[in-house]
Structure formats: C-alpha cells, structure tokens
C-alpha cells in the first residue's frame, strides 16, 4: 500500500488549494512542508487577487489581454484564457470559504486598481491579502482533517520505473530520514528568491521544488524572466505593495518630478512592473536618484486612508525605516521579487514526468510570460492548484497498489547527508550562497548584457565546484540542524541559478523582464519562443526553444 494517493510538497496557497480539492475528491492526501503551513511565503502577497467578474461589467477577455500584454506576449494564450475564465469563480469560492474581502457599498466584493490594467479588478483584504487567503485555506485544511508533515524537508523524489512515487524527506525535529510513498506528487514549493541578494522573498524561498523537478527530468522554462518589484525598501529590500500605487501613490525622483510621465504617459505609476522598475533604475543611473533610491509618495492620500487601506505598509515603513508615510515619502528601489519561470506544466499541472505535477510560483503554465501582473500570482496559485488536484486524482486511479522498494532511495540520501556533515572545506555555506546571490543580482538584473550574464555564469560555475569540494558545516547534531538544512537548500539554489543563467544567455532579444542593453528590441520573428532547459542524470544541460501558443491576440507593440 502506498502511504498516500497524493503527496503535495509545499503548503502555501497552491499546495493548500490543491490539498483541499484533492480531499474533496476523496483522495488520501498529505502535505509535506519545511515550515508550518501558515509560515509559508504566500503570506507576503499584500495587494490582492485579480478576477474579471462579469456581474461588475468586466469580462475575461479584458483580463486575458492585460495579462498577455503584461507578459510581453510570452505567455501561452490558451493557459491565460483558462486562468481568466476561471478567475471569478476562484475568488468567489475563497470568499465563501471565509475570506474577509473588502466590500463596496452594495455589500458585494470591492476592488482596487493594479498595475498594467485599466480596470479595477483586484480584490483585496487591506494590505494582507496573501496572509488572509493562506489562513482561510489553512482553516479549510483543518476542517477536512488534512494530514501535514510539518517541518519536514524533502531531499529527493522517489522515481520508480520512470514514474514519481513519493519522496525521501528529513524530519527536521528528529534528524531522521524517511521515505514517504505516494501514487503522485504535486510540487507546490514556491519560488527561488534567495538565489538573488537582496530579494523581497523569505529566507525559505530556496527553489527546492524547482530543483526536485529538474533533477527528475522535468524542464524549467523561461527562467531568465526574473521580476524586479518597483517598490522595495532601501537597504533591507522589504516589499511595499503595489497597492500603494494602486491607491494613488506617486513615484518621484530627486527633482520631485513624477518621472513616469516620460516612460508611461498613459498608465503612469501603474504601468507593468518591468516598465516601472526600468524607469526607476534609469532615473537612478542618470543621477536623479537619492542614494540609489527614488521616492514613493503617499502624503496626499491622508493618514486615515493609509491606515485603513494600507495598514501593513504603514507598519513596515514605520517599523523598518521610522517613516510615517502620511508625513514623508519613502525611499524605494527595484528589488528581486518573483520568478515568472518555473517547472514547465500544461494547464492541468502535468510536467511530462509520470506522477509529477507542479503548481504555483515554482510552476510555469505559462500565464506570466516575461512579466507578471501584480495580483495575478495569487490567482495562478488557486486556479492551477485546484486543476492539478483534479488531474492527479484521475492519474492515481491508473496506479496499482503494488509496494515499491524505497531502501535504495533513503540510502542514497543518507550518503548525501553524511557527505555534507563530514565536509571540512574552507567555506561556510552562507559565504558561498552570498557570493553567488550577489553575483546573480549583478549579472541578471533589471538591465543585463552578454558580459554581465557571462559573469553570473562564471560565478555560478565556480559555486558548483565550491559546493562540491569546499564547504563545511559546524553543526553535527540531529535535532533541528539548520546548518545542514541550509547546505541542502544551497544545492537547490545552485540548480536554479544554473537554469537562470542558461535561460538568460539563450534569449537573444529584450522581452519583458529580460532587458538586454546590448540587444534592446523585442524580436518576434525569431524569439516568440520559450527557453526550456533540461538536465540529464549526468548533469548535462540541453536547451530547447518551443513556440509560444498564440490564439486570439497577435503580438503588437507594448505601450503603457
């Protein structure tokens, strides 16, 4: 007997939405996560979730077009269509589960405007939307009695006769390694922000899911598409939501100018994120910044409005910078925030590897293409989290109950852990990670060129060698050995970094977040294509460039 029909790696929004659906479908489900579910990084989403609700005069086509234009025409249009069509029901369903969305005077859900969209279709809970959604899905998981392997770290997938049949995982509390079998596995383990320094992402966003899938034959797609968020706090890199601009905040340069009028006269501060980040960086590079920052000005919104609609932003600004947003503009700059790329899946989460599915930030369906619109990531998690559960539930019916041998997989990972524990190299894990992550920001930044990307690749290649030969860890214990955990995570981050530099060096054009100063134009003739990267068992990398799926929307010039 298998331990589970479906095992979900990760308990953020995608993982929990998937789990709740699979429970309803009658599957024997469990979630495995390296942190307690409510600690997941979905918490950090602040501004809202997009949905075109028809009873409010909106329609799915409007949302789809904005998403596709935002993606700089790299998103697969069939996938976007599904997300836009299912968005309304997905959001209403969250409301009926208990989410306390903000409302209008008619008692129905209210909206705010978000970047890259002319229509206000972003549903929100103050500036804590992600947290509010995550806690409600957690409530639903309690209601359904979901089994959770809490604070377990997955070290590898069990792949038996070509199909994924479970995981090997480390129980962080005891330090014991165990196999957990399942007829299918959904990877919903989030992004890889820690590959960069600085990043808005939590310390736990180490690309674990991407690495697990990549090392088991799945492809990573469009990994060069790294989103730099336009408003992150000076020094710490902590996120300030796009909701600030959605509610009317200005961006100012050192001369007090609303500089977006030069770059996006129509959308101003609410152009797509890649456009705003590039504009800010240009201002800073051309000497109109203030100590490497520009200013986010909310003063005209008034204190009361700021505190009710943007309470968490005010809290962050006061606590971390000592600035009251109602009194003073806040220094901000672009900061690494999200990966549009990820494990290539179809619209049902299938990765092409039997028994393996992916959903959420670690997956690439692809609906975000070269640039994700704000408030589309939460939507992505719930729509495709649910769809993955449906597809996996069909698949598990085809798997027989025969027991599979797991000893050799556990033995393999015991060996891996022993090697790390015994390693006595000259570098600490953090040292190696920080060097790589700083180089990634330098090489694969808001602006990039051949030289900078090759520099990043050189450092990543060296990091691989250092990781193999020259690391050491100090903690030799079993209980909660975070030293060991970080070493394991670094292995995953290196995989992500490697796929990112390969993707970046492959794409010989500028599109969305991938802006090359040496090749500034978009090239639809040759590059209406994804970059898709595979790694063989021997570690050999191959790059494919499949066509983008175009349905109704022919690529045109992207102007905001």
């Amino acid at each position: 007997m298998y331990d589970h029909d479906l095992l979900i790696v990760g308990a953020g929004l995608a993982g929990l939405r998937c789990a709740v659906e699979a429970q309803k479908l009658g599957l024997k489900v469990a979630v495995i996560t390296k942190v307690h579910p409510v600690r997941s990084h979905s918490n950090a989403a602040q501004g809202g979730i997009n949905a075109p609700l028809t009873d409010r005069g909106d329609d799915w086509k409007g949302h789809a077009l904005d998403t596709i234009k935002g993606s700089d025409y790299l998103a697969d249009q069939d996938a976007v269509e599904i997300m836009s069509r299912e968005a309304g029901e997905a959001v209403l369903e969250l409301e009926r589960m208990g989410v306390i969305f903000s409302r209008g005077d008619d008692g129905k859900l209210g909206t705010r405007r978000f970047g890259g969209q002319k229509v206000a279709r972003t549903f929100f809970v103050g500036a804590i939307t992600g947290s509010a959604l995550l806690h409600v899905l957690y409530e639903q998981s309690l209601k359904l009695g979901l089994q959770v392997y809490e604070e377990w770290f997955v070290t590898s997938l069990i792949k038996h006769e070509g199909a994924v049949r479970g995981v090997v995982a480390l129980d962080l509390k005891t330090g014991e390694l165990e196999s957990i079998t399942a007829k299918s596995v959904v990877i919903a383990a989030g992004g890889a922000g820690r590959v960069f320094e600085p990043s808005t992402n939590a310390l736990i966003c180490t690309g674990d899911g991407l690495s697990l899938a990549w090392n088991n034959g799945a492809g990573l797609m469009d990994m060069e598409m790294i989103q730099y968020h336009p408003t992150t706090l000076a020094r710490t890199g902590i996120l300030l939501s796009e909701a600030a601009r959605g509610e009317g905040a200005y961006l100012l340069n050192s001369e007090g100018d609303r500089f977006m009028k030069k770059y996006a006269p129509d959308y101003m501060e609410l152009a797509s994120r890649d456009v705003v980040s590039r504009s800010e960086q240009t201002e800073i590079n051309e000497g109109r910044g203030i100590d490497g920052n520009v200013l986010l000005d909310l003063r005209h919104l008034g204190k009361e409005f700021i505190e009710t609609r943007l309470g968490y932003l005010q809290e962050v600004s006061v606590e971390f910078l000592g600035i009251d947003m109602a009194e003073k503009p806040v220094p901000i700059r672009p900061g690494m925030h999200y990966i549009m790329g990820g494990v290539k899946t179809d619209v049902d989460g299938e990765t092409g590897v039997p028994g393996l599915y992916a959903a959420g930030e670690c997956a690439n369906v692809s609906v975000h293409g070269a640039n994700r619109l704000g408030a589309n990531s939460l939507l992505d998690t719930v729509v495709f989290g649910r769809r993955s559960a449906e597809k996996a539930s069909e698949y598990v019916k085809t798997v027989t109950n025969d027991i599979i041998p797991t000893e050799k997989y556990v033995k393999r990972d015991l060996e891996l852990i022993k090697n790390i524990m015994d390693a006595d190299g000259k570098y600490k894990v953090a040292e190696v990670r920080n060097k790589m992550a700083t180089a990634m920001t330098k090489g694969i930044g808001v602006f990039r060129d051949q030289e900078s990307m090759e520099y990043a690749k050189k450092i990543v290649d060296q990091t691989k060698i250092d990781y193999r030969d020259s690391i050491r860890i100090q903690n030799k214990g079993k209980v909660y050995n975070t030293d060991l955990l970080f070493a394991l995570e670094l292995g995953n981050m290196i995989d992500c970094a490697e796929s990112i530099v390969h993707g970046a060096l492959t794409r010989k054009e500028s599109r969305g977040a991938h802006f090359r100063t040496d090749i500034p134009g978009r090239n639809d003739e040759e590059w209406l294509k994804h970059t898709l990267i595979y790694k063989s068992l021997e570690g050999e990398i191959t790059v494919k460039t499949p066509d983008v799926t175009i349905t109704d929307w022919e690529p045109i010039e992207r102007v905001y």
Partner: protein
Amino acid sequence: MKVSIDVKRFDPEKTNENNWVQNYKMDIHPSSTVLDALIHVREEIDGTLGLRCACRASICGSCGMRVNGKAKLVCKTRIEELAEEGETLLIEPMGNQPVIKDLIVDISAFFAKMTQITPFLQPDEFPKQGEFIASNDSMEKLLTEMNCIMCGLCVSECTILEVDDTFIGPAALAKASRFVYDPRDSQTTDRLNFLNDEQGGIWDCTRCMQCVDVCPKDVAPMDRIMDLRETAIEIGTKKTHGYDHTNSFEKSVVAHGRLDESRLALESAGIFNIPRLLDLIPVGLRALIKGKLPPLFPHKAEDNKKIKEIAKKIKEME
C-alpha cells in the same frame, strides 16, 4: 554598531550541561534588528544556533522569542530601541511552550488550541451564485482579528496558561471572536455556548493585559475576549460562574459602594453548588491563618450616593 547578545541555549542531544547562556559580539549595521544579529551569528559565528525565521517582514510569525524578558517578533525589533551601544541583550525562547532546541519551541499545543474553537466559517447555506452579501463595516471590523499571524507571543506571556494549560488562550479566543462576529457564520450561539461553558473558556482570563501588550499586530486578544463575554451575556447565556461573578461584583459595588468579597466568592461559585463551595474552604482557611479573610458582613462606604448615581448613568447609557 557594536552589538552584544546573550542567548539562552539548549541542546537536547547533550546529556549534561545542556542548558547554558552564550555571549556573542559583533559589529553590524546601526539599524539592524535583533533578527539581523541572530542571522549574523548563525551565518558567521556559530552554525549550531537554532532559531526559526522566514519572512523578515513581520508577516509569517516564525521568529517569536523573548528579548530582555519580553516576548517580541525579533524581525521587527530594532536593537537600538532596546540597548545602548555595547549593552548586552538577553535572548530567550518564548514561554509557556516546551523548548526543542535553543530558541525553537514546540508550537503543536498552540495550534491544537486553534482546532478547539472550530476554526472555520460555518454558514447556514451558501449563496446560489456569487458571494455572501455583507456590509463593508462588518467585514472591516474583523480585520483586527484577521491581522493575527499566529506567532504565539500572547501565549508566551499569558499568565493563565502559566498555571492552567486547559485555558484555550488568547490567540485561539481571538480567532473564535473572528467567527462569532462574522455575519456569514450561522453558529454564533453554539460558539458562544461552547466558549462560555468550556473549562478554559472566556471567563478564565484574568485581564492581566500581557497579551495586549506583546501582540505585534494589535489584535489585542484580551479585548476580543471581553467582547465575547459581553456578547455571551447579551444573548442570554448566563448560566456561568463568570456571569455570576460579574453580576455579584456589580450588585455589591452598587449596593455597598465597595466589594463584598465573601459574598462574591459564594455567589460566583453558586450558593447551592456544594462541591465548588467545599473547594473554597481550604482557600478560606489559608486566608484566615494569614489574617486576610474578608469580613463576613461588608463595610459600607460612607457615602455611596455618588456610586449609585454613576451606576444609574451607566444603565441609562446602555
């Protein structure tokens, strides 16, 4: 900035001397948080130090611990707020939860208490299509409770949980109020009856204010518990010691201008509740020996007219 921290360490794998305080010194950015300092230790000085942290932005709730004796989310606690340059900070794990290693505590009891209060929306029926209709005001009020990130600081400092682990506790009761006041929920009465009757429910709070003081998200759990008490009385669930206590308190003060403690004890327990009254005997005897037994017949305040007037005013206001 030169920073010095003492960290309370615990290593369950050591058989002796597994509890100690370790000092770390470092030179870091002047506006660093306590978490920045701990991460610096972990990355640069001592890889054996155990702590939980994730978001660094006070939203995930992982990094609760005690700093100089008081529970804090260390990611939003700047060192300069608590210590002069060179002054040593003491960092300890949270209270009322068993320590697993160093600053990492076992959070399973915390989350088990959440499940006690039926922590999900229970509507009578779902709308056929679309969303529930509810006023924005009614929803915005719930944002206070929704701000809770389940960091456990309130539980760490709760003076009831220190002596009675059956208390549902501040975080879970605040969560309960989030459902009681949700206009979409249909189980308001059942929820209140449960919170009212249950050993460890809303009447066990002693209003020490610790949870309000340490909550990093202004949820003010104690205030939420007081809301629940009022609502429980309003909807008529009065058969509780808590209600009897409140009622006796009020009657005594209005009648005599001061508290009649003997009567309060009897009336709170219930005059005919023999087992509960028997329980009171040892307490009474101990008080008698120490000379602390309240008089059997209360002194009357010299002039309690004013008090009666105040009581009348309050009634009118209600």
